[in-house]
């Protein structure tokens, strides 16, 4: 018994005891921070978005962890004022050494505060389109629609143009069409408006827009813009193009494609085009 008491006394006298105490405090604090942040998020889960939950959880967790760390360091006997001074110098050194990480970290904080998008939003960055699955301090993680995991550093997110495709409840689909020069534009306009009116997922308001975008090389170019709920965006585009093709076929409206004619120069006529049949077949009209 005496030996044990003597051992504890020895431990108390040495730094090892204080270190163990600090370590224990840190571990308990870490678990406590995890539990508290999870519990708070569970309570307010139904009132917040996924993004808000993540932000709240991390804020609570890191705040508690910082307090626990300070307390643990104090327990060891480290003077925090000296440590902060040292940390200043260390930060400068560290900053030079890890510019990219620091930049990503600060960009991540800006992203969290500015909130140009949230978790579950669909965004487009450069050529990458996907659903946001996580916004972390260093990077944003996306799941693309072909089910790939993409990690984009926060710095790139701040520097690039980011399109949030799920920000507003409705979206406009711009349908590009071309009709032959011989067609009656007014008739085409009426057909298109009629198709839009009959399509149930095409919003009646905002009204569809018919724009003549110009005279192309082979066709009169038209932009027909229709609105849909964002969930129905692709379904609307597909159904509109299908219905337009069907209606144009029924009404005899030509959808032209580029025509190519061979021409040998200014002084000659275009080459006559004839078909050559395989051996054994009868000679067609073109060869007579």
């Amino acid at each position, binding site marked *: 018994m005496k030996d044990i008491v003597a051992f504890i006394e020895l431990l108390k006298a040495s730094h090892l005891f204080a270190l163990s105490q600090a370590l224990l405090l840190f571990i308990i604090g870490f678990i406590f921070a995890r539990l508290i942040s999870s519990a708070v998020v569970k309570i307010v889960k139904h009132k917040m978005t996924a993004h808000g939950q993540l932000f709240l959880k991390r804020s609570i967790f890191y705040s508690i962890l910082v307090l626990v760390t300070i307390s643990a360091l104090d327990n060891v006997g480290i003077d925090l004022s000296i440590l902060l001074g040292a940390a200043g110098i260390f930060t400068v050194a560290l900053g030079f050494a890890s510019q990219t990480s620091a930049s990503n970290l600060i960009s991540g904080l800006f992203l969290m505060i500015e909130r140009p998008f949230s978790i579950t939003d669909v965004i487009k960055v450069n050529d990458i389109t996907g659903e946001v699955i996580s916004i972390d301090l260093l990077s944003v993680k996306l799941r693309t629609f072909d089910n790939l995991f993409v990690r984009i550093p926060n710095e790139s997110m701040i520097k690039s143009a980011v399109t949030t495709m799920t920000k*507003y*409840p*409705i979206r406009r689909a711009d349908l590009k069409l071309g009709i032959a020069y011989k067609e009656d534009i007014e008739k085409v306009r009426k057909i298109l408006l009629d198709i839009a009116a*009959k399509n149930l997922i095409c*919003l*009646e*308001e905002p009204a569809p827009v018919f724009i003549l975008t110009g005279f192309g090389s082979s066709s009169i170019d038209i932009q027909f813009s229709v*609105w849909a*709920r964002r969930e129905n965006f692709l379904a609307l585009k597909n159904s509109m193009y299908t219905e337009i093709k069907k209606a144009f076929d029924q009404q005899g409206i030509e959808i032209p494609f580029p025509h190519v004619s061979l021409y040998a120069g200014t002084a000659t006529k275009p080459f006559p085009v004839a078909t050559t049949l395989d051996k054994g077949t009868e000679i067609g009209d073109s060869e007579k």
Partner: protein
Amino acid sequence: MANNAWWGEFTFSLQQQRCWQLGERTIILKRLENEWNSWNLETDTESDEPMVVGELDDNCCIEQAKFGRYLQQHTSEKVQVLPLLADRSVVARPDTPLTLLAGEKARLYVSTPIWFSAKLEPKGECLLDLPFWRPSDSWFGPSTRVGQICYAKYTAARIQLTNIEKRPHRAITPISVINNHDQPLTIERINVPVTLLHLYADEEHQLWTTGMSVHRGSHVDNVELHLDKHAPVEALSSTLISNPRVATGQSILIRSISSLFA
């Protein structure tokens, strides 16, 4: 309009099927021992024919209809069929814009589409909740950022009760508009919040909703929307058919004018 109501409690024996037909628009329910089957045959054009409830004469349309299976350990024999109002607000657009002069009031009648709902007794599990004719989607709000998804519907916005066409798949909402402003009020579109309205049937089984009154005061941009607590006076000997989809204790709502008229 048929004299018999197409809603109410229906008893199904095993293997029995019933169909509700409005012209070619058909909804069929069939009871089996462990499942309910439904067939939903949609059509493009609305029919004003009376609703026919009964056995299906031939099964020709069943092949084109959308088929549904609803499983139960033991199917109950009673089904509650009810008409319901739309599951979103309906934006009615009069054929021509209406202008209510300053200091005047008017009572408009707007008809909105009805949904067919079937619930199993006694627990009330929802079997079907579908429109006879689904209206087109629309957006109603001051901008493309702020607003709500609604259904769109053209309306004649009748002001004479005798001019109203009575149809089994439509409910009529009376809207009183009082313009106490010194400027005329132009009504191009009216947002009818049908999810907040009760549904009544009159003695001829025509469906009516709770009436609404819209009071535009002298203030520039504010209107008061009052939802009546009883059936409209036009619905003679009315009975309550169904409660609002969205329960609200408030009968008075104050909204900006842009959220009701456009």
